[in-house]
Structure formats: structure tokens, C-alpha cells
């Protein structure tokens, strides 16, 4: 994480204390006074509260997803599974609309991320080159779209006129480039690719494209990883474009399926009354399992990408 450690052993102080207490020198710092120790107790209490506030709802969801439908429906589950069962997951994973959604989301995430990444690099690299004529104007042209947008309906009309309504393209093209990602990539290229490399490549007779592919991109792997993951998580999590542009349930991404099941409470019709109650209980359970299943992929990659995310975030923040 970004937490840089400023603690280096301060030799003098450590030795003074070790002489007094006959203990091996501990790194750094004067001993805290009483007020400071009380203060630190407060800090730890505060942070533990933050930790629990975030963690407990997540634990509650996971515990519920592993519990018996009856216990879930009657609200008996708190932070530990009651009558452990995998029934919820079994049901979720055998539901065709959810599986379709899962497959679709994987498709949109892979294809969308690839398109976004290629387009972002294609605009960000040239704009990062100081010797490119018209760079400022084009940058302004790109950044202006951050300030003002046509709106939902005018964009919808474009998608409609292109004949992309109810096609998979509608989810991977209209939001393909994020201006923020372009800015991050631009400042990375500008600060991390030394001009000497370009000079040398030119002397060797390499073209701009050749230089980009064989020198710049291999040097930019961390950046490419950050940008790709930003796009991937965005694609995996978004539902709005699908809500706008898709009518055919076979094309729905997982998030839209989730919204229909979790928030609109849609369940399959045509069941007799006796089965309805049991059905309701199962539906409650399935909500929890669904939440877990749809979030697990993101949570699995997140710890590995968090540090790069921070880097990307900060690169963008430092040089806008």
C-alpha cells in the first residue's frame, strides 16, 4: 500500500534507553507520554470501529449465504452460518439466467477491457509526446468531454442510429475510453519513458510504432495492468448501459440479472401456493449466495491490484 515507512532507527535515543533498561535497542521514537498513550488507545478503538463497520456486513452476507433457508427467512442468522448448507449456491449455479449473465459478464469484461486498453494507449501515447504538433489542442478536445456531456438521451440516439441497440457492441463501445485513464496513461508515459530511449530508437531507424510496441509497452506493464484492471472492474460492475441499451435477456450482464433478482424481486412465476412459501425462503437465501458469487471474482483480484491502483490513482493526481 502507499503507507511509506518513515521509521528508521534513531540511534541515539535507542541506545540511551537500552542502557537504562538493559534491553536490546528498539527502533526509534521517544517513549510516549500518558496523554499520547491514551490518544493511541482512542486511535485503535476508532480504527477497529472502522474495520468492523466495513467487515461485519460482509461477514453477515457470507454467513447468511451458507445458512439454512428457513433460518435466513426468519432472520436468525447473524455472523455465523446457522445449519450450514450449500443449498443457496447449488440453486444459484443451476439457474440458467444467472449462468447466462455470468458468461455474458465474462465476455463483456474481456472484450471491453481489450478494446478500452488498445484505444486508451493509442490516444495516450501520442499525446504524451512533447514533439507532436497539435498535442495541446487534441488533449483539450479529449478532456473537454469530462466537463460537459450530451446526456443520456442524445447518447442513446447515437447508439440507436448506429444500429447497436440490443447488441453486445452497445456494452463495450459507448464507454470504451475513460478520460481519467487517458490522463493517467499520458502522465505515466511522459514521466517514465526517458527521451534518450526515443533518441536511440530514432538513430537505429525505428519508426514511432515500432518504438511504441517494442520499447514503450514492455516498459509500461504496471501501467497497463492498472488501466486494464480499472476497465475490467468497471465492466464487471456496471449495469446502467445494459439497462439502457439491452432488451434481450440473453445478452444481460450479471449485474442486470442481479438487479432483477435482488432488487426487483423477480422469481419464476407459475408455482402453486404451497410451494410459494418454500420458494420465497429459497429466494431469500439465493440473494445472499448471489451477492457472494458475483463479488468473489472482484475480491479475489483486488488485493493484488490494490497497490497498483493506488499508484495509478496517485500518478493521475500528481500530474493532471
Amino acid at each position: 500500500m502507499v503507507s511509506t515507512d518513515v521509521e528508521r532507527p534513531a540511534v541515539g535515543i535507542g541506545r540511551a534507553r537500552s542502557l537504562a533498561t538493559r534491553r536490546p535497542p528498539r527502533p526509534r521514537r521517544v517513549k510516549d507520554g500518558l496523554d499520547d498513550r491514551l490518544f493511541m488507545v482512542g486511535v485503535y478503538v476508532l480504527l477497529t470501529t472502522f474495520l468492523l463497520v466495513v467487515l461485519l456486513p460482509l461477514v453477515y452476507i457470507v454467513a447468511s449465504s451458507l445458512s439454512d433457508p428457513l433460518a435466513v427467512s426468519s432472520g436468525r442468522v447473524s455472523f455465523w452460518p446457522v445449519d450450514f448448507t450449500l443449498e443457496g449456491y447449488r440453486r444459484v449455479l443451476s439457474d440458467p439466467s444467472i449462468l447466462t449473465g455470468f458468461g455474458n459478464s465474462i465476455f463483456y469484461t474481456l472484450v471491453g477491457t481489450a478494446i478500452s486498453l488498445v484505444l486508451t494507449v493509442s490516444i495516450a501515447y501520442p499525446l504524451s509526446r512533447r514533439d507532436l504538433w497539435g498535442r495541446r489542442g487534441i488533449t483539450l478536445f479529449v478532456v473537454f468531454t469530462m466537463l460537459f456531456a450530451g446526456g443520456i438521451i442524445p447518447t442513446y440516439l447515437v447508439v440507436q442510429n448506429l444500429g447497436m441497440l440490443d447488441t453486445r457492441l452497445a456494452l463495450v463501445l459507448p464507454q470504451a475510453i475513460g478520460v481519467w485513464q487517458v490522463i493517467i496513461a499520458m502522465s505515466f508515459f511522459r514521466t517514465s519513458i526517458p527521451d534518450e530511449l526515443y533518441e536511440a530508437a530514432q538513430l537505429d531507424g525505428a519508426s514511432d510504432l515500432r518504438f511504441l510496441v517494442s520499447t514503450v509497452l514492455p516498459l509500461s506493464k504496471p501501467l497497463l495492468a492498472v488501466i486494464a484492471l480499472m476497465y475490467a472492474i468497471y465492466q464487471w460492475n456496471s449495469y446502467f448501459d445494459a439497462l439502457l441499451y439491452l432488451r434481450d435477456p440473453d445478452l444481460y450482464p450479471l449485474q442486470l440479472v442481479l438487479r432483477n433478482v435482488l432488487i426487483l424481486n423477480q422469481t419464476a412465476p407459475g408455482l402453486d401456493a404451497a410451494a410459494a412459501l418454500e420458494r420465497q425462503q429459497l429466494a431469500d437465501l439465493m440473494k445472499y449466495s448471489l451477492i457472494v458469487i458475483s463479488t468473489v471474482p472482484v475480491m479475489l483480484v483486488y488485493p493484488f491490484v490494490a497497490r497498483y491502483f493506488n499508484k495509478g490513482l496517485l500518478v493521475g493526481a500528481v500530474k493532471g
Partner: protein
Amino acid sequence: MPVGVGAAGAAPTLRDRDKQRGWPGARRSLQRHWQLYLLMLAPLLYFVVFKYVPMTNAVIAFKDYNVVDGVWGSDWVGLKHFERFFSNPIFWPVLRNTFLLSAYVVLASFPVPIVLALALNEVRLRFFKNTVQMVTYAPYFISTVVVVSMTILFLSPRLGLAGDVTQFFGLGRIDFLSDPNYFRHIYVASDIWQTMGYSAVIYIAALAGIDPALYEAARVDGANRWQKIVNVDIPGIMPTAMIILVLGVGNVMAIGFEKAYLFQNTLNISQSEIIPTYTYKVGLLSAEFSQASAIGLFNGVINLVLLLGVNALVKRLTGSGLW
């Protein structure tokens, strides 16, 4: 990550050779870098098609759009759609809801990440620090749909934990979701829950960038931890905090559609209907394209004015704006 060693040394030659102004410079640059311009074609086409064409399409706000005549063939009607929106009894409530909700989000979610970052900055137990940071950061990656579903499940009087808690305090089982007065609090609380760890990152970085000499000086002066926070940490992150606040205020009308729409139900609509959700309903559910574009344009212009105004104000006060 590679470091730009000695980039400054080579820069002048590059600049001297290629930085010619005017058309000769353009022609030279085009000849020399035609591959780069070619590379930019596809992304630029994207911006034209999906960003600038919608901006021109927004003229249907001043027309009676119909599918047959298209955007440019439809009849001009001037400000009719704006007037219709302004005289609609829903106009003031929706404007008020939008403004109150986003102002509440901006103000309430502003101090939390700062407190989190300041507290984390004090902790030396690495494991604890990293755990808190990782865990509070995690919800940022959870989708809006899932966060809203979790909140609904949590607050549901039949299933959720919140009912147990309010009952424990003798308040009975409050149905938070169907009472419009709770809508904004629920929205803001879930927003803070989701973004505080993410927003804290930028402050943690700002804290790490504070000159160690200042801490040294504070220690020499006998400052305790609290005094150090007040006199060194907080002034140190003030510029960052101000930028974040300005951005928030400037974007007050640009509040997202996604979450409000998901939290909406027929019972809380009196407070949960905001301009973006209303635009969506008018435009796509009732297919009144021109009316919806007028509302969207109105919102976009207010937002642009706010952003430019706030930026100008900050520039005057501090000498440096966002751009």
C-alpha cells in the same frame, strides 16, 4: 517502474528540432509522425461519435424530435420543453432532491476519509494498519447493484439485522426503506461505507509527503501526538482536502443515476426522485426524447457553470485552480 533518468538532458534537442509553430511545424510533424496520428484516429473517432455527436444531438432539446425526421429534420420549438419542465409541479421537488442529496453526500463524506487517514498514519503496527486499509478499501470494488442489495437486505424489517438493533433499543422494527425521510441517510451512509477507504488513499499519500523536518521540529517543541496532528498533519493535507472539496462542490449536480435509481421504490419516491432518474423515466420509459434532453441539458449546464464558478473562486482565493 522505470525512472525517467536524465530526461531533462535530452529534452532540449528534441524540442529544438521538432517544436516549430504554425503550418510548417504541422507539416513536418505529420511527415515525421504520421504513424502516431494514424494511431490516434480510432480513439478520436470514438470521442467524436460517442461524445461530440451526442453534444450536437442535444439540440433536440429545442426541437420536437420525431424518428422520421431525425435530429436535424425535426421542427424547432425554441424553449418549449424547458418551459414545460420549469412549470411542471415536479420541477422544484426534483431540483431540491437533487441538490440536497448531492450536497449531503459531498459534505458528509468529506471528513470521514480524512479521519481514517489521520488515524492510520498514527499506527505503527504494520499488520493492523495494512488490514484496516485493505478491508476499508474493499467495498470500493463491489458493484453498486450489490451494495444496494446488501443495504436493502440489511435494512429489511423481515430479514435484516437493522430491525433487531432498533428493536433492541425499544424503537420497534422500523421500516427504513419505505419511509422517504430515511432515503438520504441510507444513500449517504452506504456511500461513505463504500468509498471511505478509497478516498483515504489520497490523504495517506499526502501525509506521507509531509516534510519529516516538520515532525522533527514538532518533537523538539515537545508536541504530543494530538498537537502534531493539529499543527503538522492537518495543515499538510489541507491543499489536497480543498481540491477534493472543490471538485465535490463543483460536481454537485452531477450526482450519479445508478444508486438512486436502485434505491427507489414507490414509497420513497418523494425524496428519491432526482434529475438523472427523472430524465431516464421521461426519456426512455415515456419516450419523450426532446423533453428528456432538455432536462439533461439543463442539468449539464448548471453543473458546468458550478464547476467553472467554483474553480474561478478557488483560483482567486488561492492562486491555483484545478486547471
